C-alpha cells in the first residue's frame, strides 16, 4: 500500500492535459530565443557503419550511461536480445514513427518526444563487459584480450551497486527528454533479458570534441578535455581508438574499441573553499583561461621536461601525470568523452556531483590503465572519489541494414 495515489482523473485526461500544456510552453520559450543555429546542428546520425556512433561523434549535451545484468538463458537468447536491441536502436536513431495500436492497449511509444521524434543527434553505443564472456553464452574464447573487470585503484571506494555489468549502453542526445525516451524504449524492448545494474545521467556543453571549439568545464570549474586527440582525424582514430585487424585480439573485435567508464565523485564543497592557487597547481592549468600554468593559451603545450623539480608544474599535478607529453607516452593517448553529473546529496548533506568519465582506446593497457596508474597518488585525489563504472568493449559497428550488434560477436572466424 502506498499513500497519496490519486483518483483516475489525476492520472487520466485532466492531468495529462496540464502536463502537455506546460511542456509545450517551455519548448516554445526555448525556441523563441533563436535556437536556429542549434536546430541546424541537430541531425539524425546514421546508424550503420564500420564503427558505432557516439564514440568519435561530437559530444551531445546530454547522456545516460546505463549498465545491465543480462539474464538471457543461452547464446541464442542473447543473440535475440541483441537483434531486438539493434532494431530498436535503428528505429530510434532514424526517427521512425512508432505504430499506433488499439487504444485499449498500452501504446508502443512513450511520446516523450512527440509523435514525430525530432532530429536530436541521438546516438546509442553498446558495449559488453568481461562478465558476458563467462560460461553462460559460450563466449569465453572470444573475450577481447585486455577485457577484465575494472581493478580497484588505490583511491577508489568501489560501490558494488555502481560497478561492472554484462552490457553497457551509452545514450547521447541534445535533450534529457530524448535520452530518457530512448532509455525507456530500449528497456521495454529488452525487458526479458536486460536488468538494470546501475545508471547515471550526465550533461556537458555542446560540441566538445575538436572542431576548434573551446573545451567544456567540469564541475571543478576547470577546462577539461583540452588535450583530447581530434576525433575528426580518421588516421589518428585508427591509431588510438579503433581496434584494427591484425591487433593481438580476436578477429571479431576489429572496428570496436575499449570503453572505460569511471564514476568519479568530486568533493565540491571542499574544492570550493580551496585557494585558487592551490586548485590551479593541483590541476596544472589557469582556472580562468585553461592555459597550462605560466603559459597563455589553453592549447599551449607544457614542457614538463624543462621543469624537472616541479617549480612550474608540481610533480603530482593532474595534467602532468595524465599526459606527460613525452614521446613514449604518446601511445597512452585516450579519447575522452565524459559528462558531468549531479545526483542530489549524501547523508552528510554534501552534494553528490562529479564526472561521468568515459574514454575510448584501442588498447586498455596502453590507454586508460596506463593513464590511471600514473594518476595514482595525484594531488587531486584528496578531492575526488571514484566509486563505480567498469571496463567494457564497445562492439564493432553494424554494417548492413539487416545486421545486428551480435553479428561480429558471434561471427564464425
Amino acid at each position, binding site marked *: 500500500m502506498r499513500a497519496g495515489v*490519486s*483518483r483516475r482523473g*489525476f492520472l487520466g485526461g485532466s492531468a495529462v492535459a*496540464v502536463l502537455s500544456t506546460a511542456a509545450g510552453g517551455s519548448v516554445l520559450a526555448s525556441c523563441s530565443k533563436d535556437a536556429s543555429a542549434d536546430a541546424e546542428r541537430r541531425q539524425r546520425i546514421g546508424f550503420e557503419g564500420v564503427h558505432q556512433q557516439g564514440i568519435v561523434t561530437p559530444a551531445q549535451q546530454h547522456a545516460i550511461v546505463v549498465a545491465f*545484468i543480462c*539474464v538471457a538463458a543461452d547464446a541464442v537468447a542473447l543473440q535475440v536480445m541483441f537483434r531486438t536491441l539493434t532494431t530498436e536502436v535503428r528505429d530510434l536513431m532514424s526517427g521512425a514513427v512508432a505504430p499506433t495500436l488499439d487504444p485499449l492497449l498500452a501504446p508502443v511509444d512513450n511520446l516523450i518526444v512527440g509523435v514525430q521524434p525530432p532530429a536530436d543527434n541521438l546516438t546509442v553505443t553498446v558495449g559488453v563487459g568481461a562478465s558476458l564472456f563467462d560460461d553462460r553464452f559460450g563466449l569465453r574464447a572470444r573475450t577481447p584480450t585486455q577485457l577484465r573487470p575494472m581493478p580497484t585503484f588505490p583511491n577508489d571506494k568501489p560501490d558494488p551497486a555502481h560497478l561492472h555489468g554484462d552490457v553497457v549502453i551509452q545514450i547521447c542526445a541534445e535533450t534529457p527528454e530524448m535520452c530518457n525516451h530512448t532509455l525507456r524504449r530500449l528497456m*521495454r524492448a529488452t525487458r526479458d533479458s536486460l*536488468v538494470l545494474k546501475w545508471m547515471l545521467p550526465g550533461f556537458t556543453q555542446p560540441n566538445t570534441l575538436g572542431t576548434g571549439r573551446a573545451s567544456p568545464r567540469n564541475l571543478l570549474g576547470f577546462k577539461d578535455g583540452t588535450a583530447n586527440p581530434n576525433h575528426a582525424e580518421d588516421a589518428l582514430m585508427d591509431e588510438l581508438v579503433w581496434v584494427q585487424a591484425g591487433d593481438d585480439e580476436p578477429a571479431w573485435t576489429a572496428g570496436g574499441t575499449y570503453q572505460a567508464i569511471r564514476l568519479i565523485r568530486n568533493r565540491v564543497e571542499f574544492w570550493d573553499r580551496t585557494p585558487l592557487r592551490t586548485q590551479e597547481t593541483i590541476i596544472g592549468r589557469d582556472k580562468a583561461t585553461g592555459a597550462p600554468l605560466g603559459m597563455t593559451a589553453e592549447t599551449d603545450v607544457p614542457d614538463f621536461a624543462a621543469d624537472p623539480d616541479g617549480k612550474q608544474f608540481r610533480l603530482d599535478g593532474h595534467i602532468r601525470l595524465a599526459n606527460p607529453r613525452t614521446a613514449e607516452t604518446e601511445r597512452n593517448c585516450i579519447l575522452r568523452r565524459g559528462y558531468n553529473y549531479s545526483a542530489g546529496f549524501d547523508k552528510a548533506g554534501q552534494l553528490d556531483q562529479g564526472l561521468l568519465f568515459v574514454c575510448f582506446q584501442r588498447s586498455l593497457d596502453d590507454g586508460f590503465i596506463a593513464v590511471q596508474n600514473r594518476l595514482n597518488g595525484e594531488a587531486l585525489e584528496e578531492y575526488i572519489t571514484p566509486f563505480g563504472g567498469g571496463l567494457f568493449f564497445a562492439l564493432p559497428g553494424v554494417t548492413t541494414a539487416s545486421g545486428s550488434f551480435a553479428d561480429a560477436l558471434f561471427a564464425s572466424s
Partner: protein
Amino acid sequence: MHNRLRIAPATVAIALVTLTASCGSDEQSSDISMAAPTASSSATGAAVTRAVRLTDNGCEPTSLTAPAGDVTFTVTNAVDGTDLKSEFELLTKEPKIIAEEFFAQGEQRDVKVRVPAGDYELICGAPSNPRAALTITGEGGENTAAVTVDPAALQANVDVYTTYVDDQMTDMVASNAALYDAIVRGDLADAQALYMPARVQWERIEPVAELFPDSDAVLDSRVDDFEAGPTDPAFTGWHRLEYLMFDQRTLDGAEPFAAELLTNIDVLVTNVHGISIDASTMINGAAALIEEAATGKITGEEERYAGTSLLTFASNVEGAKEIVDLNADLLRGVNPTLYAAIEQSFAAIDAGLAEYANGDGTYAHYDTLTDADRAPLQAELATLSEDLSAVAAAFGLEVS
C-alpha cells in the same frame, strides 16, 4: 499499490482542481463511456439529456432519474465561491468513477456517458459537497459491444472469481484470529509463525481489497507511509505487528494493534461482500498483482522485518495465476500467442521461486538474495507485466 479505482482523499481532488485551473486551456466536450464509444442511441431510441448545475452547495437538481443507455448531461458551472475549476463527477456506489470533468466558472459543456440500470451519485463543485442521487432504470447501457469474448462465459468466470475472493476473505478472518490468539497468549514464536499465514490471503486478492483504500491504509500500510517512522501512532495493521514481532522481538503493546486488525478485517469483509466484482476488475487484477510484485515485493520492502517478501511475492503471483487460469480458455481463444507467453512467464517465475522454497510453504529469508539472484526474477516480472497489460485489450475490456 496504485489502483486507479481507488477513491482519493478530498485533499488530492482539491489539488487536482488547482492544477487544472493553472492550465488555462479548456478541454472540449468529450465522450466518456466505459468501453469504446459505438452507437449513441439509448435503449428507448431517443436522445436523453439532463441538465445539471454545479453550485457552491452541490448539484442542482439534487436528484435525477434517466433511462439506461446513453445519457448526455448538460453541465453548467454556477459555482462562484472559487475561481478554480469545479468538478462534475459521476460514480457508482462501489464506488467507481464513470466520468470526471472539470469546468471553469460559467462554463457550460456536455458530458456523455453510457450507463446501465442502477443507483449512482453525482459530485458537483467541491468533492466535499453533498452528493446528488442519480437513478438509472430500464434495459441497456451495458458496455458489451466491444467485448471480444463470450460475455456469458466471462461472467461465469467472474462468478467463480468472486467465490475465490470470498473464500480468501473467510480464510483471512480465520488466520488473523489465530494470530490474535497467539499474541494474546504472549507466545512470540507462535505469533511469528502465524504472521505470514495471516498475510497471504490479502496478497492474493490485493487489487480487489484495495478497492477500499481506507482498509488498505489501516491494514497494509508500510512504515514508509509515516513520517514519524515505526512508532507513529497511525502506523497500524500487519506491518506494525511485523515490526514489533520481528524487529523489536516483543509482543508488548501488540494486542491493541491485533484487535484493531481484526475489527478492520471485518469491515473489509463487509465491504467486499457489498460489491460486485466486474470483468475489468478481475482481468486487470492479474496485471495489478504482478505490478505489485515487481515494485513492492522484489525490493524486499514489503516484509522488511520478517524477511518473508518472497512469500508475499509468491502470493501475488498465485493470485494473478488464479485469474489467468480461470480465463485460460477465453484468452487462448482470442490470443493464443499471448496466452502461451503468459504461461511461459508464470512457469519461469515459479521455477525461479522454487529455487528459494524451503519445502514447507516458506521461502529463504529475503536478505540472503543477491542482486544477481533478483535479476532473473525482475526480468520475468517485467515480461509478465507487459504481457498481462495486453489481456484486457484482448478481451475488449477498458482499464478503468
